[in-house]
């Protein structure tokens, strides 16, 4: 008899046998896992990547430099809430400044600006620049937008989270 078989004396027939009781316990355990996951989301204070921050809490403003630094079709990256909250600032072809979180709403890859649209290279998802709506590929939710403000001295500031498109209609 092989050494490993002596060390683990389980018959192959028993290895493949799962009783109803064991299967039901497995179902209960998986169900408990989902409950723990929801409980974790409930207790977690920090928003998930791509989620807007809690309402009612004033958010700090972040200086993004001169407002006219970007030409139409250009973009640059910045961080907002903390060093892991990566965002992208872009100027659309029409000359509008927009900022979004870089986190794709599909599986969380970083989106990039291709001059006309925001694209997620992982699964070829595309978002339009105006409001961050998905226009092609697997994403179904819009990107999380950042509110911008140009101050009288010509500097551009990120000043908070934009409400998700359609959020105002629910109230």
């Amino acid at each position, binding site marked *: 008899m092989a050494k490993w078989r002596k060390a683990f004396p389980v018959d192959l027939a028993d290895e493949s046998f799962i*009783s109803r*009781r064991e299967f039901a*316990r497995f179902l209960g355990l998986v*169900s408990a896992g989902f409950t723990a996951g*929801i409980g974790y989301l409930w207790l977690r204070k920090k928003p998930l990547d791509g989620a807007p921050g809690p309402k009612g809490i004033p958010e700090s403003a972040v200086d993004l430099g001169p407002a006219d630094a970007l030409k139409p079709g250009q973009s640059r990256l910045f961080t907002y809430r903390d060093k892991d909250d990566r965002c992208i600032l872009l100027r659309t072809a029409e000359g509008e400044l927009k900022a979004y979180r870089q986190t794709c709403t599909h599986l969380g890859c970083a989106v990039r600006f291709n001059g006309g649209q925001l694209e997620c290279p992982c699964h070829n998802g595309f978002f339009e620049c105006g409001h961050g709506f998905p226009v092609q590929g697997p994403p179904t939710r819009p990107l999380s937008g950042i509110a911008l403000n140009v101050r009288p001295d010509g500097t551009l500031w990120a000043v908070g989270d934009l409400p998700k498109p359609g959020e105002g209609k629910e109230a």
Partner: protein
Amino acid sequence: MRPKAPRTAMTSFALGMGLLILVIQVYLFETVLGSVLDGHRALLGGAFIASLTLTIVALVMAFRIRGMDSGPRGKDEP
């Protein structure tokens, strides 16, 4: 005298209920995650209580229902 229902009918029901609970849990978790990503955190408390209730039902059925195995007996059943 009414004939007794076979015990396996009840245990099959319990097993089916466990599967149904798991499907509901998957749907609930997916919905909750999407809502949290959209910034709606208010439903988390209710979702947690609903999920906890379903889990308690599933665990009670898994551990307390007698005669779950109608075929070969499980390791821990007399």
